């Protein structure tokens, strides 16, 4: 954990975009978080909008009780803004999807270990699945700005599930899109496309991957075979987000557990056992 940097901040919604399929994207004014956050980090968001300051102490709403982890997909220190993108899965995300401009949300963050790469790893391939593209968008933009050559391979179930793809055009050197049903881009699983790309395109210095568990297991397998350094960003149910509840356990190869919130969410592929 970059605990030194953890703050409790108020995020004022300046923009709330929604799509029919339960996708949402919130732009929040939260200057301190925007200044500190690094790609790969996340915030714990309280899903109830704050009420007027003088009434906040009265308003105990404990259901849902726990904050929800969301990756930061963009940060603009100058404007003091961060962006989150999400999809409606359960009750917490459904509540956030209903956020309106002008509402304020309590945030804890930035949390977790960011994507860290030596400068020498110049050619990066970001491999994202579904909503897993969120932290990669932030990482891609920042690594491209600091001189890396960044390509993206994003996979989705179907065309209407494509999210975050357009904005990669601004900074990605190569862009590969796949859908499971072939309704957009190439037909197939990202791991299969990845295998072919690594064979055809030649050298990649590091893969940064985020997505559903099955996809990550497959992608890390391909990377291992191809001996490409691979960082994965993991998602686990989180109670606290800062290392005290021990709920976000992920198995290490030796059978002990790491914590996704403080040891991760970004791990080197070999640090974790994604098969259990």
């Amino acid at each position, binding site marked *: *954990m970059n*605990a*030194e940097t*953890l703050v*409790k901040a108020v995020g004022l919604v300046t923009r709330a975009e929604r799509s029919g399929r339960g996708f949402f994207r919130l732009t929040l004014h939260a200057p301190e978080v925007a200044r500190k956050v690094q790609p790969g980090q996340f915030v714990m968001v*309280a899903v109830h909008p704050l009420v007027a300051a003088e009434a906040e*102490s009265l308003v*105990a709403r*404990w*259901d*849902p*009780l*726990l*904050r929800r982890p969301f990756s930061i997909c963009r940060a603009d220190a100058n404007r003091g803004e961060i962006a989150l993108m999400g999809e409606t899965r359960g009750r917490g995300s459904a509540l956030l999807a209903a956020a309106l401009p002008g509402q304020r949300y309590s945030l*804890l963050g930035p949390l977790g270990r960011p994507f860290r790469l030596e400068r020498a790893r110049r050619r990066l391939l970001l491999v994202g699945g579904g909503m897993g593209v969120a932290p990669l968008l932030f990482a891609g933009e920042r690594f491209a700005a600091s001189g890396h050559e960044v390509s993206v391979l994003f996979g989705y179930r179907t065309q209407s599930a494509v999210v975050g793809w357009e904005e990669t055009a601004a900074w990605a050197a190569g862009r590969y899109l796949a859908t499971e049903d072939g309704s957009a881009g190439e037909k197939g699983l990202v791991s299969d496309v990845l295998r072919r790309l690594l064979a055809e395109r030649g050298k990649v210095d590091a893969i940064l991957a985020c997505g559903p568990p099955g996809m990550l297991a497959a992608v890390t397998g391909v990377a291992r075979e191809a001996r490409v350094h691979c960082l994965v960003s993991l998602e*686990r*149910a989180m*109670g*606290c987000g*800062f*290392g*005290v*509840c*021990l*709920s*976000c*356990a*992920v*198995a290490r190869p030796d*059978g*002990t*557990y790491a914590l996704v919130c*403080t040891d991760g969410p970004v791990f080197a592929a070999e640090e974790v056992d994604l098969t*259990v």
Partner: protein
Amino acid sequence: MALPDLSVDLGRGLVLANPVMTASGTCGFGEELARLFDLRRLGAVVIKGTTLRPRSGNPPPRVVETPAGMLNSIGLQNPGIDQVIAAKIPPLARYGVTVIVNIAGDSPAEYQELARRLDGVPGVAAIELNISCPNVDRGGMVIGTHPELAAETVGAARSVTSLPLIVKLSPNVTDIGIMAQAVVGAGADAVSLVNTFTGMAIDVERRRPILARGVGGLSGPAIRPLAVYQVWQVFRALGGGRGRPARVPIIGMGGIMNARDALEFILAGASAVAVGTATFVDPWTALEVVEGIEQYCRRHGVQAVRDLVGAAQEAAGAEVEQHDGEQGGEHDGE
């Protein structure tokens, strides 16, 4: 008006600067919170349940949210008592934090061994015996639900340490007052309650329990009214009443989210309180509870927080009294 006196005496020399602690298992070993605020501003820090041998914990999922609460089955993940003594306690102790070590064992003998190793360790202010673990020696009997086993366990620990012993009671019993009497009889210096209530959540799509281990312990605001009542009951079972303190101090917890909630426990009979699940939602909660209690005392002209302990019992009319007999005070069954 002078500053209200927030100090509390939990017996056998354990005096806290204020009545607010963190609950075991909800603040790790204090490291994360120490980066956020000065832990010496809390009455005490109760560290994660510690066992004789290191434990890697249960497979995930380990938590599931429920209405105004959460179920957990962490599985007592901890580095083991030796490592806790060697690496976890010293930094807290050096810093001047009041450290209470929560221990868990499978048998009276294990509790005894844990207590023996902690005796004399610099910086350990007290031991909290978490007696809600299944007892493997006695064929799965649960120490926390059997008065004799609980007393035996407390006696075993008592015989090997001069540290204050707090016994943490399980709420999953018909009459928690009887459990409290048993452990106090066996030498407990204080009792703490409640530990989590046993519960389960089922994934209806997959038709199986959500937690990998099936059952889990319910904590959070959902249980607060149950926990307040159990503190109320224990206060009475230990002889507390109008103006009379209980035989030993009670540490109350269960769903405390703010100072108002903490005061419910104090007014019901708790001398101190612990903040658990709330820390997950907001890591500064325990500190805010200290400040809120102080403000409450000022606002109400209360000179010492100990004057509030059990005060709601005094106010309670005959009807509560009558309702709240030896057998645990059933209400009339609606």
